[in-house]
């Protein structure tokens, strides 16, 4: 009968109840949606960044990370390869690359780019270049004088397929090496900055040009799903001889790590903001109904109802509002996110978001944990603040309450 009473009491003032219900619904919905949106954005951001030649792990020569010059290359790649083959889980992938800052030029323009010498087949499995839309063709073992360039770079340099780009950089002998490559493919990337920064040639071609012999700049590793990154990183560190360093993507992308933390903080702040707005509404509404029904509570006490029961009675009303609001809010949240599962196109704002490695299209994603947290906050804090009006109601003495005629 308590819930029946609470339920009927709620609808004595349908407008007020509806308003506060809407507040709960919007609050919860915005929490869910924001969480889903952020979650989607973050995951894609991490994936994008990992696929832009980072991988989950990298092995480099000590010193390369802070000073990525050719002297800090891995001169005995077979040594590293052996360790990788031994230590990594079976399904893990890895590849080695040559990387160097060079200048690309043609008759009209110069641009600083990162030359990436790759093993085309292994690389395609590892990073974005394997899936990127490509005009023209990909590299293969017999294309030592061909190059892949990004769409934005090609446009900036006013060039096109089959035209030449000359790359210039410092070789192992401290001399300027240069070599001309013909554009075999133009790739599109998620981010314009990626298109402008990277050009791809065969690893062998890069090694020849820079007189590196078999040396490479780094090994990049992609772990199978479920593998524990820190554990693998530790095992690699122990197995590798002196002179190498292992980096996880969190170390390689400190900005990304900072962003993850910032987003967490942002979601937390938003949760607090939503909750404060909703909590005030809830307390106010219930307080109003409590004062309006003062003589009713007086009557209940006169009849022998103890304070505890009265508190329960008031909390039951808050409970119903919260549960109704949560049901609707969750439903609405799931529906909205479902409706946007095709992706939310942010290209209009992408220019600003791009530096963080955010995608142009975000796929919001609801995670059970986020949902539980949002609901938990709304529910328990909601009941918590309702305790205030409940205690007020319990404190009316029958005599003073009855005087309010």
């Amino acid at each position: 009968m308590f819930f029946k009473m609470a339920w009927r009491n709620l609808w004595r003032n349908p407008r007020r109840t509806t308003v506060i219900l809407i507040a709960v619904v919007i609050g919860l919905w915005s929490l869910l949606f924001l969480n889903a949106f952020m979650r989607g954005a973050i995951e894609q951001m991490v994936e994008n960044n990992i696929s832009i030649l980072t991988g989950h792990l990298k092995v480099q020569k000590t010193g390369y990370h802070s000073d990525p010059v050719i002297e800090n290359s891995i001169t005995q790649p077979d040594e590293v390869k052996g360790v990788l083959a031994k230590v990594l889980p079976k399904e893990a992938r890895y590849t080695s690359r040559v990387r160097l800052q060079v200048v690309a030029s043609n008759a009209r323009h110069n641009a600083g780019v990162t030359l990436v010498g790759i093993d085309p087949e292994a690389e395609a499995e590892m990073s974005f270049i394997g899936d990127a839309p490509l005009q023209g063709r990909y590299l293969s073992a017999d294309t030592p004088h061909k190059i892949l360039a990004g769409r934005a770079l090609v446009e900036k340099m006013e060039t096109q397929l089959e035209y030449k780009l000359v790359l210039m950089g410092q070789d192992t002998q401290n001399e300027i090496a240069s070599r001309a490559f013909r554009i075999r493919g133009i790739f599109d990337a998620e981010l314009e900055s990626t298109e402008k920064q990277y050009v791809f040639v065969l690893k062998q071609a890069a090694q020849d040009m820079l007189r590196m012999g078999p040396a490479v700049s780094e090994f990049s590793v992609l772990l199978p799903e479920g593998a524990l990154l820190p554990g693998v990183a530790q095992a690699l560190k122990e197995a590798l001889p002196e002179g190498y360093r292992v980096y996880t993507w969190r170390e390689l992308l400190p900005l990304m790590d900072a962003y993850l933390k910032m987003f967490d903080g942002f979601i937390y702040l938003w949760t607090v903001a939503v909750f404060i707005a909703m909590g005030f509404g809830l307390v106010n509404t219930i307080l109003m109904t409590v004062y309006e029904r003062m003589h009713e509570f007086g009557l209940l006490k006169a009849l022998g109802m103890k304070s505890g029961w009265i508190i329960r009675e008031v909390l039951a009303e808050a409970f119903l509002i919260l549960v109704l609001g949560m049901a609707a809010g969750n439903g609405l949240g799931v529906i909205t996110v479902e409706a946007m599962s095709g992706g939310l196109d942010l290209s209009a704002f992408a220019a600003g978001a791009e530096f963080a490695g955010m995608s142009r299209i975000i796929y919001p994603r609801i995670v059970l944990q986020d949902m539980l947290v949002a609901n938990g906050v709304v529910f328990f804090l909601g009941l918590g603040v309702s305790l205030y009006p409940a205690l007020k109601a319990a404190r009316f003495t029958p005599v003073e309450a009855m005087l309010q005629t």
Partner: protein
Amino acid sequence: MAIVELTGVTKTYQQGKVSVQALRGVDLRVEKGSFLALAGPSGSGKTTLLNLIGGLDRPSQGDIRVDEHDFARMNQSELAELRLFKIGFVFQSYNLIPVLSALENVEFVMLLQRIGAAERRQRAEAVLAEVGLSGLLERRPLELSGGQQQRVAVARAIVSGPAIVLADEPTANLDSKTGQGLLEMMKTLNAQKGVTFIFSTHDNMVMDYARRLVLIRDGRVAEDQVKGS
């Protein structure tokens, strides 16, 4: 046997700097099975006295016992318990819980007494039939007339067989014919079931129903007469 015993009861209300002496020393014994009217002009202290007997408020001085329970020794929670099981209340107005039907209003106290659903319902129906409301069980208070509402209140007050029923001007908001009907009904319950009633009034017609009439004036018992029935 005295079901209510008051000795030297005073009550002073403090309103800011002004203190109002509502009761100035009341001694009163009420026997089981009484049908007693507290009569007196408005402001004489009737409501205050009933509130004290019902344990809704505490006296400034003096002792109050109801059904052998010494109020001075009881805390709020024990007083609530006593009200729940031993004392029925009928107020002048705002007697019923607006969101509950007549039947549910009567059932409600039994719910607090932790009586099972089936028994609650059966007893509530029976007592509502006794007060003549069989056809109106599902009506909400607002759908009942003033007289019918007071009957529901009486039904609720007596449903658990309390030691006393306290009624503060139960007929004040009713027209005289309806008021007489209510009093007749209370009197019948008193005669047939031995329910002890203490009710207050300032209406001469109502006083005529009482078997014992206690006149209150200026916070004191001015007259106490037992009338032949």
